[in-house]
């Protein structure tokens, strides 16, 4: 149907009509979205809403990586998973939910942990990466991988009653290492499984991650690059602050950066951050 200047089928026009009606999004934004591919790393608290909204809005190819299985204590925040999937793969569960919402897009399942040995191969298949993981070594590994492959990275985090969001390695902007060249001491690191999180807090951040990924994919709006969003749920306060640009000294993306694919595959991110890629068992003493 090139005579109408777009490739949308009548079914697509009906399904996405409310987005097509938007003057600032429209047929061009939707076409860009349908041609794009997005990888969501982590099908947990952040990944749940991010995957649902990315599937619903019509991303052409949607990938998900996670090695975990669904547990009952995930369900208070990981709304993509139902009780029927307890004990089964999170990716299997999330893929089924995305397909039930939108059977017309391509959904790719990666039922494995993202590691230095497979990250380059998996990430290279997608245009945009959404970091929805829950630990420090993954965040450095994913950022380095995106720098090596030139992929924009939509990074979200949530803990307790607070959340953070930024777009890295986009359009000359900073990467995660530009901001955080040195990992924090391990005593300062906490993850949801250790410290708790109110379920809807990753919900808000995960939705905002989907939004930023949609903006990058559809070429609509100003992505949150060079800026960071800080969310405090308790007081209902949100700050959007200006952060530094790309650092010329950055070991990943700077002028004299020496990071290579070969080095990446042998880099020990757990040792670098002194923190494990998988979560420790929960210590909860209420009974």
């Amino acid at each position: 149907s090139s005579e109408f200047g777009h490739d949308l089928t009548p079914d697509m026009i009906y399904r996405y009509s409310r987005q097509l009606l938007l003057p600032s999004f429209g047929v061009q934004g939707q076409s860009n979205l349908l041609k794009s591919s997005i990888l969501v790393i982590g099908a947990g608290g952040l990944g749940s809403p991010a995957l649902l909204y990315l599937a619903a809005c019509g991303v052409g190819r949607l990938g998900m990586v996670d090695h975990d299985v669904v547990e009952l204590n995930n369900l208070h925040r990981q709304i993509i998973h139902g009780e029927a999937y307890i004990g089964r793969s999170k990716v299997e569960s999330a893929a089924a939910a995305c397909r039930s919402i939108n059977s017309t897009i391509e959904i790719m399942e990666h039922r494995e942990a993202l590691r230095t040995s497979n990250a380059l191969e998996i990430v290279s298949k997608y245009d945009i990466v959404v970091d929805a993981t829950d630990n420090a070594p993954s965040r450095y590994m994913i950022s380095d991988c995106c720098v090596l492959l030139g992929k924009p990275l939509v990074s979200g985090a949530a803990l307790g009653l607070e959340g953070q969001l930024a777009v890295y390695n986009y359009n000359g902007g900073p990467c995660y290492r530009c901001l955080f060249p040195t990992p924090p001491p391990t005593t300062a690191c906490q993850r949801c499984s250790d410290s708790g999180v109110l379920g809807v807090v990753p919900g808000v951040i995960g939705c905002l991650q989907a939004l930023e990924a949609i903006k990058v994919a559809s070429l609509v709006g100003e992505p949150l690059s060079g800026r960071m969003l800080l969310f405090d749920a308790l007081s209902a306060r949100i700050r959007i602050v200006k952060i530094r640009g790309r650092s010329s000294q950055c070991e990943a993306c700077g002028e004299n950066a020496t990071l290579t694919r070969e080095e990446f595959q042998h880099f020990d991110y757990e040792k670098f951050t002194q923190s494990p890629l998988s979560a420790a068992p929960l210590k909860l003493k209420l009974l």
Partner: protein
Amino acid sequence: YLASSKILICIFSLKCSGGLELLCDSVKIHSINVDLPAEEKKLTMKHLLAWVRSNLIKERPEMFMKGDTVRPGVLVLVNDCDWELSGQLDTTLEDKDVIVFISTLHGG
């Protein structure tokens, strides 16, 4: 010159990490009065950090600082701008400036 400056401090995501109990009950903005060293003309971030260390941090200073600057993983914002853009420790402060400390989160 000013003998004391009123500075607004806001702590994000550092609450549970301990060491900043005085500021830690909420992310509301706290107003503090910082005395300027007598020989100095201007209050800088370097002075402010030294002041925070001796006046606000009761225990485990390593959760907030390393040497004379903030520990890795803490971002400092002066009036909603990364202090890398204003000269880090040399950033000069004025009355009513808002300083935000954020600890990077990893959870999801």
